[in-house]
């Protein structure tokens, strides 16, 4: 105690800083950094849950590269990402841009768009799954039938199932994007618009020349945020295809579902760890791209 009592105020504050940080730092080391390194390490082993870990070097990665299922899954994940991100960004921007100019029932309409974001994806996946069922069960096909339009096979089709699942993911995330876009729009000073107006510029030109360029940081943030979301899609796919997770014929299976099955259904932990490393590398690339884009601003 006398040691502490003899310190200056500044030195005492340093002691306090490290005291406050002790438990959190232990947490970050044990629950974030160590597991990250362990994932890399385990990915170099052949290891079934029960039994010995055997060092196999890069064998798991070689196996990944030659595994047609992995490439199928990689392609699926890429489709979720490359279709989901731009589509949801454009949709939410259009909604936000229009909603920003609406005063009548503004708060109410905004709430309608935002509400799905607060639902549980796993629960709503079942609602959508019901909607997508064939006649006489599914709501969409029943509605089509009552209009005399032929049925659409959604979740049982290898071509339609992925878009059908992706639609629910876009639906779920749209409200968040709208809210963030609206905040971005609000941050643009009205004087810019007024100046443009005095110059007699059309709405369309204002949108192209003022609004969109000034929204660049918001767009980059949302592109990265939603890319990461689509890259990690799991809840919807798992719940909408429980009979044959990722099916039919792996046509909807994303990377995270493959990781889940490899690790916790086949118990091939080493191979699954190698798959997580691939996910990590892709995410890292996206994050670095974001930093790069932000800098160019």
């Amino acid at each position, binding site marked *: 105690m006398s040691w502490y009592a003899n310190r200056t105020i500044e030195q005492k504050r340093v002691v306090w800083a490290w005291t406050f940080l002790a438990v959190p730092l232990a947490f970050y080391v044990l629950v974030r950094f160590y597991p*990250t390194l362990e994932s890399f390490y385990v990915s170099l082993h052949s290891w079934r849950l029960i039994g010995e870990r055997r060092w196999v070097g890069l064998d798991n990665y070689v196996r990944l590269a030659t595994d047609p299922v992995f490439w199928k899954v990689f392609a699926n994940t890429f489709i979720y990402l490359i279709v989901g991100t731009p589509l949801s960004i454009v949709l939410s921007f259009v909604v936000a841009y229009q909603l920003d100019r*609406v005063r009548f029932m503004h708060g109410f309409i905004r*709430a309608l768009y935002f509400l799905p974001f607060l639902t549980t994806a796993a629960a709503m996946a079942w609602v959508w799954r019901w909607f997508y069922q064939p006649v006489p069960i599914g709501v969409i096909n029943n509605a089509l039938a009552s209009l005399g339009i032929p049925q659409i096979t959604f979740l049982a089709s290898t071509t339609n199932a992925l878009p059908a699942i992706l639609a629910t993911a876009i639906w779920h995330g749209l409200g968040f994007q709208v809210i963030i876009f609206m905040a971005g729009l609000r941050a643009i000073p009205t004087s810019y618009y007024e100046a443009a107006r005095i110059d007699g510029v059309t709405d369309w030109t204002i949108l192209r020349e003022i609004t969109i360029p000034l929204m660049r940081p918001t767009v980059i943030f949302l592109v990265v945020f939603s890319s990461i979301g689509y890259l990690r899609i799991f809840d919807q796919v798992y719940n909408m295809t429980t009979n044959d997770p990722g099916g039919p014929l792996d046509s909807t299976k994303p990377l995270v579902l493959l990781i889940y099955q490899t*690790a916790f259904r086949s118990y091939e932990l080493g191979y699954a760890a190698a798959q997580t490393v691939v996910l990590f590398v892709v995410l890292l690339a996206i994050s670095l791209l974001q930093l790069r884009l932000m800098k160019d601003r």
Partner: protein
Amino acid sequence: MATARPLPAYLAGIRPGRIVAWTLLAIGGVLMVTPVFYMLMTSLKLPHEVYQLTLIPREPTLENYFYVLKDGRFMRWFMNSLLIATIVTLSNVFFDSLVGYVLAKFTFRGRYVVFLAILSTLMIPTEMLVIPWYMMSAAFGWLDTTWGIMFPGVMTAFGTFLMKQFFETVPDDFLDAARIDGQGEFAIWWTIAMPLVTPALSALAIFVFLGNWTAFLWPLIVTTSPNLYTLPVGLTTFSVEQQIDWELIMTGASLATIPTLLIFLIFQRYIIRGVVLAGLKG
């Protein structure tokens, strides 16, 4: 955010284009809530009405809720989710703000390194950590326990970063004045700094609670006994069992959704503001 800012004069006159835009926007909004509304309405329907296209039940009934809640599993899962989400939220509010405060308001060697180290964990996806977490839980006997579900989330880099941003706006004078009065460092943080950042705290709490209430992958991995399931995991197993009784699945899904909807209806303004704060600053 809460109220629309007055439109500039040039937009004040209502033009036909605006009416069309408003109508389309309103239709889009209605379509957005249709799945949620349809789910709630179907949970009030009798089996023979479920596959008719009518939205509003002709004979509304709570029969499905009685049936689903009868065996007590849903209550159990509901309580598990509530407990886990609440504890993890409190833990984040405490630790994330403590760390954020230290990083914002203390000067010491290594501060920047600590900050970067914590920030860098944002780049690590949860999915990469589930296998080591599983091994760790197995080693410590945390598999299939409530603590096992909670431990990965008790602190987040996102929350720490958010809180650091906000504590930086707190003037040093306030804290120094308390220091001269002889208050301890912990008391200064808790009684002086914390009340000054309540908007950020509520934003953090909303995000963490929602994230844990809806969390699916890790609870699915770490739990095996139905007693410990969280609501989303329990709902999945329940729905797989029911498969054909869609009105029961809709009832279960409603039970998972109603709490967050109620919270939203009550605190709409704060939640939207919080989401913006967390999204833009975090």
